[in-house]
């Protein structure tokens, strides 16, 4: 699931990921929409922008971690530069963060590794290819 208030960034992410893994993509443009959508679609991975109107990424992340339907999702926070944003992402329960402007290649690696984990079952080898902070 892709959550960003910028249409351009969402389009970029969706265009980058394309058909690299066996998954369906969902989009949301703020935290509140993201939490509502995530409860229904139960995403395996949430790419979550940190700065958004209505509800920001940190709060959305906290709520996703608190809900039984979305607790297990991998959450990757898209942050600006700055150690405080990384800290905030981590404190809210994000698994990883990508700093904007993020590398599309890193994004591809991350998502295809994660779909490999889903395919093979969370075996030790597959798990280890997905770096945890």
């Amino acid at each position: 699931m892709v959550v960003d208030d910028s249409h351009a960034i969402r389009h970029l992410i969706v265009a980058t990921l394309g058909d690299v893994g066996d998954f369906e993509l969902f989009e949301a443009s703020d935290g509140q929409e993201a939490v509502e959508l995530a409860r229904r679609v139960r995403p395996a991975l949430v790419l979550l922008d940190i700065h958004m109107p209505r509800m920001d990424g940190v709060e959305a992340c906290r709520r996703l971690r608190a809900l039984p339907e979305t607790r297990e999702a991998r959450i990757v926070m898209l942050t600006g530069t700055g150690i405080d944003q990384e800290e905030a992402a981590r404190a809210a329960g994000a698994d990883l963060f990508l700093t904007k402007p993020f590398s599309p290649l890193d994004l591809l690696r991350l998502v295809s590794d994660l779909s490999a984990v889903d395919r093979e079952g969370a075996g030790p080898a597959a798990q280890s290819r997905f770096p945890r902070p």
Partner: protein
Amino acid sequence: MGEPAQDQGVSTTDVDAMLAELVTLRKEVADRRTQAAAAERQLDRYAADLRATFIAERERTEALHRSYMATVRALSNAVEARDAYTGKHAERVASYGLEIARATEWELATQPEIEFGFLLHDIGKVAIPDAILYKPEPLSVEERRLMERHPVIGWEILRDIHFLGEAKVVVRSHHERWDGTGYPDGLAGTAISLAARVFAVADTLDALTSDRPYRPASPLSEARDIIVAESGTHFDPDIVTAFLTIDEGVLERIRLEQQ
């Protein structure tokens, strides 16, 4: 009179000018939309190319890794094929080694070179004459000296294979002991590579839990006790501690599946 438009504060020419401006603006908006759509399509092409390159690169990497693995197994099989009664020793020791590596330091077990080293540890034995390798009686001093060259011979055989990396260190150091009384370099403590220290435990575990012509296999619990007794002399105590956290069922499965 005669200029009603001016009464309303707008002349006909003003209206014309405004209309013309509106038309221009509309055209500009339409142009920008067209441009934006074209830019998005171009971005889609960039993304599709990047993705295709990424997938192709990943497939090449995986194919390369598979052929590395097949090459290493072939070399390891060459050593095993000679030895009638150790059976799949290298495969088992590699499986034990990976379990112990995982328990010691998760990241260690994810490096393919480590598994390569475990599989190839005895490759140097190809240079040891059968008369010594299979001699049932104790070896003479001279024979033992020759036998103890196998780690260095193995290391020399593999020296120029770049992709083996750390595996070569495992091959060279797999008979070193924590207290420094091993061979060939007499290294002690952490001067011995972590992978080689892990290997030492795996190798002993397999030796103890396998049948030999001169003695039957020890049960796992007994093998554990022997390894614990040699913690700090033969083995790195931290690795022994990590080894003890491994579920016995996991080790037993490796022993049974790879006879």
